[in-house]
């Protein structure tokens, strides 16, 4: 392991990864990797998570391809220095801010989107000119094997490496010195990563999770909008990895009077999308492993929680499948309402007045996203100003992930730092400010011995009071 990392450092030192042509070459090779191995990737995702090809393309392949293509087309613009404005006082000077790679970076990815969450940050790190070590999650073993085998075949293997293994490998990696660590995963492990990074003063980006709520308001009053609302909620909850996503809708908030309408619509939609019962279930992933399966089953063990199930609830332990399940008003102090669900269970919490949903959301840690289905502009404004989350999406869910122009990241317990699009490039770069000065003219008042005149001069200079300066120098102003 130490040898690999030493090699990454040597490669970075050689300057090879800084050249724009190297970066473009890697990104093009990356696209080849994805294009030529679609079937293998589909197979690995099916093996690890039971994802169907459409889901795999929509949530994994398509995303990384789009990312790489976008980065390729924007790279020249991103690496260009940004000019800085300078005041007349510093004339003649030139200022610019130049992005430079941080060096050798470590990326920890997660098991639920094992391709996207490994390769999307990788694209950012490469675009920014770094050398990278990628540690995929061992909980998605087929994808991990695929990455270990495919990446060295297409990419510069002295600059981009993949390492397998479990938590012990992760721990050893964290003891070493990196120029940046990019982590996607749980808050618990996020703390460990940041604590380890603190020893070396390594900057980190932590993409965590949280209970992402979906407020459902007046879009239910119009029948066609209500249908679309239900479709989007169902598609966003069970579509991506059967709810095992950091931006999946964790729970729904709706007014009491509309709850039954919403539940009926959701049921119909679930049946249409995924089948009527456990046996007929299709087009949906499974739970990743026995641990997660047991955890989810345990969430429903509490008798009060079990009693609140209004749809679904059946499980198949052998196949690691839990059918889409809706709960109505489980007790607020139950585990299911206090930890991130990360699975196919959807609690619906009713409130008397939809405005109460804001206090409810604020009583919990900041989530990664807040979703709100509403056409009330005042309510939208209130949600934006009175809540805090990584991002907010109105009248849809999950889809903000596709926007390269929006920063993707958390706040508070949902993490810090961001990526996607140019933000990926920035997160793996250091913005170095550069000021070029000329030897002339010289400002004598900069230098000691100090006098009142010099003090006055500098005070006026700092206030950019050019008229005052002129008067001072011409002797018309007392010092």
């Amino acid at each position, binding site marked *: 392991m130490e040898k690999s990392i030493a090699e990454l450092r040597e490669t970075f030192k050689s300057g090879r990864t*800084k050249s724009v042509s190297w970066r473009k070459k890697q990104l093009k090779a990356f696209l080849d990797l994805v294009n030529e191995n679609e079937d293998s990737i589909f197979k690995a995702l099916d093996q690890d998570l039971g994802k*169907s090809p*459409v*889901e795999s*393309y929509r949530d994994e392949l398509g995303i990384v391809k789009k990312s790489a293509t976008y980065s390729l087309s924007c790279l020249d613009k991103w690496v260009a220095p940004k000019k800085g*404005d*300078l005041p007349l006082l510093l004339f003649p000077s030139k200022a610019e*801010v*130049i992005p*430079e790679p941080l060096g050798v970076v470590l990326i920890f990815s997660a098991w639920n989107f094992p391709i996207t969450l490994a390769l999307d940050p990788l694209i950012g790190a490469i675009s920014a000119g770094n050398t990278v070590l990628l540690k995929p999650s061992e909980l998605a073993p087929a994808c991990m094997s695929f990455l270990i085998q495919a990446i060295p075949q297409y990419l510069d293997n002295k600059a981009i490496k993949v390492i397998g293994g479990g938590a012990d490998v992760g721990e050893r990696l964290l003891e070493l010195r990196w120029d940046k660590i990019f982590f996607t995963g749980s808050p618990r492990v*996020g*703390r460990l990563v*940041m*604590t380890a990074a*603190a*020893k070396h*003063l390594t*900057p980190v980006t*932590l993409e965590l999770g949280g209970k992402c709520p979906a407020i459902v308001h007046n879009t239910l009053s119009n029948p066609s909008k209500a249908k*679309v609302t239900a*479709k*989007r909620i169902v*598609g966003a909850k069970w579509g991506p990895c059967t709810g095992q996503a950091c931006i999946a809708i964790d729970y729904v908030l709706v007014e009491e009077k509309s709850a039954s309408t919403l539940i009926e619509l959701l049921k119909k939609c679930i049946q249409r*999308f*995924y089948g009527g019962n456990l046996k007929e279930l299709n*087009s949906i992933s499974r739970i990743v492993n026995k641990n997660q399966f047991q955890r989810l089953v345990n969430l429903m063990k509490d008798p009060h929680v079990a009693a609140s199930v209004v749809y679904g609830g059946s499980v198949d332990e052998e196949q690691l499948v839990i059918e889409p399940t809706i709960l109505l008003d489980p007790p607020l102090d139950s585990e299911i309402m206090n930890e991130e669900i990360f699975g196919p269970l959807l609690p619906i919490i009713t409130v008397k007045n939809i405005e109460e949903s804001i206090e409810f959301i604020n009583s919990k840690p900041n989530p990664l996203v807040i979703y709100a289905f509403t056409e009330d502009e005042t309510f939208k404004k209130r949600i*934006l*100003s009175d809540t*805090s*989350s*990584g*991002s907010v999406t109105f*009248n849809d869910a999950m*889809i903000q992930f*596709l*926007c390269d*122009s*929006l*920063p*993707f990241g958390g*706040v*508070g*317990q949902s993490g810090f730092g*961001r990526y996607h699009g140019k933000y990926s490039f920035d997160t793996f770069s*250091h913005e*170095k*400010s*550069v*000021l070029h*000065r000329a*030897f*002339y003219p*010289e400002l004598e008042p900069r*230098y*000691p*011995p100090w006098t009142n005149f010099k*003090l006055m001069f*500098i*005070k006026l200079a*700092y206030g950019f009071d050019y008229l005052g300066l002129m008067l001072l120098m011409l002797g018309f102003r007392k010092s």
Partner: protein
Amino acid sequence: MASEEEKKSVFDAESAKEVVKELRACFAAGNTKSYEWRSTQLNAVLKMMEENEPLIVAALRDDLSKPELESSIYEIAMVQNSCTVALKKMKHWMMPEKAKTSLITFPSSAEIVSEPLGVVLVISAWNYPFMLSLDPVIGAIAAGNAVVLKPSEIAPATSSLLARLAADYLDRSCIKVVEGAVPETSALLEQKWDKIFYTGNERIARIVMAAAAKHLTPVVLELGGKCPAIVDSDINLQVATRRIIAGKWGCNNGQACVSPDYIITTKSYAQKLVDSFVCELERFYGKNPLESKDLSRIVNSNHFARLSKLLDEDKVSSKIVHGGERDEAKLRIAPTILLDVPQDSLIMTEEIFGPLLPIILVHKVEESFDVINSSGTKPLAAYLFTNNKKLKEKFVSTVSAGGLVVNDTTVHLAEHTLPFGGVGDSGMGAYHGKFSFDTFSHKKAVLYRGFACDAFVRYPPYSRGKLKLLQALFNGSFLGIIRALVGWFRS
């Protein structure tokens, strides 16, 4: 009675918890979010600086024997400048930024909204105790946060003046100053903050970041490092020398994170450079620099002892070519230049942070870059004096540091359009101007979607046709989309 008073004045974890609780209530009530509150507080800072200049200068004189001009400019004027810039631009900074959306999410609109992080902690340093306290606080206020400021106990006069002035001028319910040393700082660090902004040294920075990790609190660390200044031969030597002196001894007598720590120059040019230094130093500080009022003193006896140790090391003490005089009682060390010190000496291994300037010699000026890069650490700033265009280009492309300046030192700090911060061991994060506002904000992405054109391809039941259509949509090619749709309808 005395023990009761002692009890009250102990600031422990419980007290820290109370402070955070009070500020959280203040923040939750929305008091700090309005533009009016922010501009009122910033105007109050301006007034505070204006009305108390003599007191501030006196406190800085007590703590550091800082010359009045340095205090007026680097501590007072710069803070006022920061406030003025923030007041002028804040409305614009607070406005949401429009973001582009693509075909994939059509129809939609998007924006990025800046929101305050919440309750933030600013831990400041002793060398520029006013500026390094208030500059970050200005950013925190401009971004709408509630703030706790912990000034450095190593500058006690300014710490207590800051505490008093803040209580008199600023909104006490949302902006607090907590004085103290290690125990008080530890108590503060145990709490959960929404951001911690630390200026200081690497050792404490590690402790701050580890404490922040427990609560997943993001941090900005403004540290230091050995900032090198490369001096080429074909330059205006007098101007270069004066600018180096201004950045070294003119900045708190070398006790500044961006002071040139050491010089690299060619063997052939070294003597000329030393002579120029000696000449200009005398012009600035007189024949008896230990008595000069235009130089700060060493902050305390710990640092005096530390610097003395650097000078007394065997392989170094013989290399002193100018200065070296010390006055322990007055905590003064004269501007000292050392020539050709060994690279493994103490003075070349740790950040000097004082009035000692070692000069490292190379055969060719290009070798300077290897010297800098071989240290394995990235400094906060790096300087180059040259007229050679190629050398400038190589400098900019090969030297990694927080910021670079060609043909001057330290002035980049005054430019609020340039991000000021470190990289690697010199820190993480940046501030000044809009960067201060951004560093204390969360940039929340907001996507507005419509109900028209609900893309059926997103939903199950899945099929090959949907797959093809999705692929075309992602590729963004209209032709591809049409082809896929045609194929879809055919099947």
